[in-house]
């Protein structure tokens, strides 16, 4: 077999071999972890500092807009952020705009609050899910009591102790958007961040991060965490000495698995292009496509 023939067969290889390689690139580093140190991005540090600057007793509005598909990227940040806020005695009011989020995010909120002995209604509250996308966000900007008349536990939102004095989004000193897509951070920035000059930070999936960097640079976002590395960096800031017993830092555990995955993709790109370039002149000479 000539080199040319080998390269042609290599390019036409059944893609299931590529899938198998990807599976190995994910499983092996999980079973045999090799941990490299990583540094913290300026954008993630800014996020952390924004929460740190809040005085104890402040109330923060968290919009948890993610589903199980984006859990590996965002749940670690969500947990670390709640830990950070509860540890500093910051009160948390949570809403969501995604219909698949509540069964996922509400148990996490309850778990993190219980760990810190927080009381529902006074130290934290989940006031509900609202469909309607941009309209729901505008409604949150205008009148939270009208938009969320009751929380899922049947309490009148306007009479919850934690909600006293917080009728509109602008009454909160900080809005945290944990966003996996639409609606999420972009819609909050477009609809109410500018109109009410909200202080806002965002944790988003890696796919969205390049889109939200202009918002960060323009000052519309005060901090930004993108994907699993962003979540891992935030975990590093919240747990500088490592996690306490019973706490798993899933992003920190997983971020080093990305090493081999990325190297595998880079190898595939290089091999694919090299084999294509070496076989290309004969394709062109034979009248085929370049």
């Amino acid at each position: 077999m000539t080199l040319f023939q080998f390269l042609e067969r290599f390019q036409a290889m059944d893609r299931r071999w590529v899938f198998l390689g990807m599976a190995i690139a994910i499983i092996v580093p999980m079973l045999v972890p090799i941990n490299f140190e990583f540094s913290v991005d300026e954008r993630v540090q800014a996020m952390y500092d924004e929460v740190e600057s809040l005085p104890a007793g402040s109330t923060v509005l968290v919009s948890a807009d993610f589903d199980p598909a984006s859990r590996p990227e965002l749940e670690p940040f969500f947990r670390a952020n709640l830990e950070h806020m509860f540890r500093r005695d910051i009160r948390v009011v949570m809403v969501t705009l995604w219909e698949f989020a509540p069964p996922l995010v509400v148990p996490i909120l309850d778990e993190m609050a219980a760990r810190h002995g927080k009381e529902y209604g006074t130290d934290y509250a989940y006031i509900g899910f609202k469909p309607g996308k941009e309209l729901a966000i505008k409604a949150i900007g205008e009148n939270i009591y009208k938009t969320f008349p009751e929380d899922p536990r049947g309490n009148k939102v306007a009479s919850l102790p934690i909600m006293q004095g917080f009728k509109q989004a602008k009454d909160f000193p900080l809005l945290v958007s944990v966003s996996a897509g639409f609606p999420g951070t972009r819609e909050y920035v477009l609809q109410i961040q500018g109109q009410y000059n909200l202080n806002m930070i965002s944790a988003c999936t890696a796919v969205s991060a390049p889109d939200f960097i202009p918002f960060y640079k323009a000052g519309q976002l005060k901090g930004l965490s993108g994907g699993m590395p962003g979540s891992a960096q935030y975990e590093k800031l919240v747990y500088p000495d490592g996690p306490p017993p019973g706490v798993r830092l899933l992003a920190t555990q997983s971020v080093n698995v990305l090493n081999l995955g990325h190297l595998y993709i880079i190898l595939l790109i290089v091999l694919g292009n090299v084999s294509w370039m070496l076989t290309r002149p004969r394709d062109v000479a034979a009248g085929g496509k370049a």
Partner: protein
Amino acid sequence: MATIDIAGAWVSIFLTMCIFSYLYDDNPIYKMAEHLFLGVSIGISTVEIYFGAFKPNMLDKLYNGQLLSIVPLVLVLMLFLKVNRKYSWVARIPIAFIVAAYAGVKLTGQAQSNLMTQVSQSMPDLGQLWADHGMWDWSADGAGVFSGLFLVVGLVAALLHFYFSAPHNRPMRMVSRFGVMVLMLSFGASFGYTVMGRISLAIGRVQEMLGLDRPAAEAAAIHPQVASVVSAGVVIAVLVAWRMQQARSAPPADAEPAP
């Protein structure tokens, strides 16, 4: 840990394997899982939407005597008439309402945040940049006068690339070419982030199958690695049986083609 929760974890791992079987080929066990997913997800959406919007923002208010909530009820009933051929025109009114509401909020939002703010932030203060970072400052990730100018020139060039109202002359084509290169840098960066995002999702699934996302006590009760092996075995057995059945029902290789 309760038996039902252990059973749930095993079902979860089995369904994960069913979906992963698509990597081999589109097959009955994947189709079963896919249709189960459709049914469950639409059911969950409907339940959450009822308890998230219909009940608190309409039905409870009507029940408490807030008569203005009759308006959304009437609009909703008008919208449901869309399924009837004779009266589907009635649904135009609630559709007009909602389209107009979305158009109004999107218009101001886009104009304020995407247009005004982004344009205003694109005018770099070159004097300040020179004072803070000089021409290029590695310690500030390349901030400086060069980057400030690159950003403005790149932005204008990319905008010019999307200008189709007049034919591009030679200078415009050169600038547009630079704009395309800037766009390619951005899309390449996007692709890098996308790869990272996609692999992260697969990492999450593998973590569950290996039991690495649970506390040790829970993992010891569930035996997720055993569940993964058993599920993989069942899925492989189904795939083998399916392939054998396909081979049996395929026409012989030397059969005459149908007229």
